[in-house]
């Protein structure tokens, strides 16, 4: 059948040193159906043979928000702007989970897919991209639960107004996804050589959250630590995300520019390292 479809003037692909695995947009586009199937695969597989199934989407952020409520609001008495603490924490936790799951899943690209990568060729970048897609798909129902919570507060008389900047939300998520992709790819490339790196990454992500304005607004950060928050791209993105939801905080232009610059830099570096790693990793792992 297919012999007639081949264009004999142009080879389907060329293998040569340094140019083996093409991750350029055109070849990625050709594998878009694989991308969608992988997203579906991971989305479905995550909740097979679990007791609560998809309810984990809702249970986990809810429990974590309750814990934060006790520790940071009741004991540490940190401000949560004008928002009820539960809404503040929950909105932060779901977006942080999105980011941190993206980073850690992308970081495992080579370790978990070594078997497949050794047997079948397809643009390797499809794997990390599909992880981002899966986590985005996980995030949406959680956002739905957040809106339900807001609705509940509104019904019980405590009005929470949504910001008119809601349309900027996808943009903020996109920036976080790009940062996660770049960072994850960078770590993934390093795991080809140092396999235990992913464990360190887990701890780092946990620590990182506390500096990313998930537990308190920028105004509550002690002045001697504010430089740390300014340099942390995730802090700016989380703030930006919350301000596009509620408008109770205002995004700071300077830190946001720094965050975008760091994101673009990390994305470029991460993708370059990933590309380098995918060429030779079958000879290493």
């Amino acid at each position: 059948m297919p012999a007639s479809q081949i264009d004999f003037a142009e080879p389907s692909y060329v293998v040569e040193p340094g140019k083996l695995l093409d991750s350029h947009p055109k070849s990625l586009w050709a594998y878009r159906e694989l991308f969608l199937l992988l997203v579906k695969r991971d989305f479905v597989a995550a909740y097979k043979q679990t007791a609560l199934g998809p309810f984990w989407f809702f249970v986990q952020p809810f429990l974590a928000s309750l814990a934060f409520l006790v520790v940071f609001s009741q004991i540490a008495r940190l401000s949560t702007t004008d928002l009820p603490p539960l809404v503040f924490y929950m909105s932060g936790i779901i977006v942080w989970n999105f980011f941190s799951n993206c980073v850690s899943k992308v970081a495992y690209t080579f370790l978990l897919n070594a078997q497949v990568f050794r047997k079948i060729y397809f643009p390797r970048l499809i794997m990390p991209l599909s992880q981002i897609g899966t986590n985005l798909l996980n995030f949406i129902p959680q956002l739905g639960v957040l809106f339900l919570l807001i609705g509940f507060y509104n019904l019980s008389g405590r009005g929470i107004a949504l910001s008119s900047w809601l349309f900027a939300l996808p943009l903020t998520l996109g920036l976080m996804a790009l940062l996660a992709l770049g960072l994850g790819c960078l770590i993934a490339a390093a795991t080809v050589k140092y396999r235990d790196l992913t464990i360190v990454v887990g701890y780092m992500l946990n620590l990182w959250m506390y500096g990313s304005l998930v537990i308190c607004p920028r105004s509550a950060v002690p002045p001697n630590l504010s430089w740390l928050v300014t340099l942390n791209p995730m802090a700016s993105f989380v703030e930006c995300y919350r301000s596009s939801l509620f408008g109770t905080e205002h995004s700071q232009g300077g830190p946001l520019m720094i965050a975008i610059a760091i994101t673009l830099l990390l994305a470029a570096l991460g993708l370059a390292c990933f590309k380098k790693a995918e060429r030779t990793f079958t000879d290493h792992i």
Partner: protein
Amino acid sequence: MPVAIEAHHISKQFFLGERNQRTFFEDIWSNTIFGVQRFLQPGRAGLAQPSRPSFWALHDVSFQLHQGETLAIIGENGAGKSTLLKILSRITQPTKGKARVFGRLASLLEVGAGFHPEFSGRDNIYLNGTMLGFSKKEIRQKFDEIVDFSGLEKFIDVPVKNYSSGMYIRLAFSVAAILNPEIVILDEVIAVGDAAFKKKCFERVESIFKQGHTVIMVNHELAHLRRMSHRCLWLRHGQVEMFGPTNEVVTHYERAMNEAVDERRRPAELAGSEYASAAAFLATPTN
């Protein structure tokens, strides 16, 4: 006849020994020392990092295969056959050289690598097909044929983790065999599953040959190759020992192998065949 694969001077170097054995901090440490030494003594190169031992798994391999031809790759273990296949299928890259491939290339057995255990057979057919570069539409058109060929109609909606290993391989083989990539790699054991399925496999392979597909055969019996393949590439220690019509190359190969065996054999054993002498050897203690 248009070209299917064009390989020009392909070489692949592997490093031996200590690669990847050091930890992160050891690497940082040795790179720092290396940097300082280089800074202090710019003239002397390679102080802290002695050149690693390496070998060439493939060296200067060139050949051309036309559309519809069958290529047999022969050679002893470690001659570079699988390395060559890995390079042609883009799993790894060559150190030097270039190959141009026209069409999709897939191995009939290694396809199952992309199966996800939690997914049903149905979903895995689509997942694997798209990994091989086929569109969902193409797969949908052939779906029934794939299921029919695998003989797994009853189990197609069962997760593949519950399949027996025979069922698993049957499904994997069926995906690649029915989807018909333009270039097919036939590895050693094309006969998988039980006797009935084995027969089906052979028939399918025969029809792949008849349909004029480009086929690369590895690790097959020489008699089988003589009958089925047009061209033969004989690799020895990573280099092309001979490339040409199968009959000619296989004849030379057999002669070389026999000579190698003869050299190792004691003169008294020369008379019988390899098996006869082995049988005699085994029989000795009882006599």
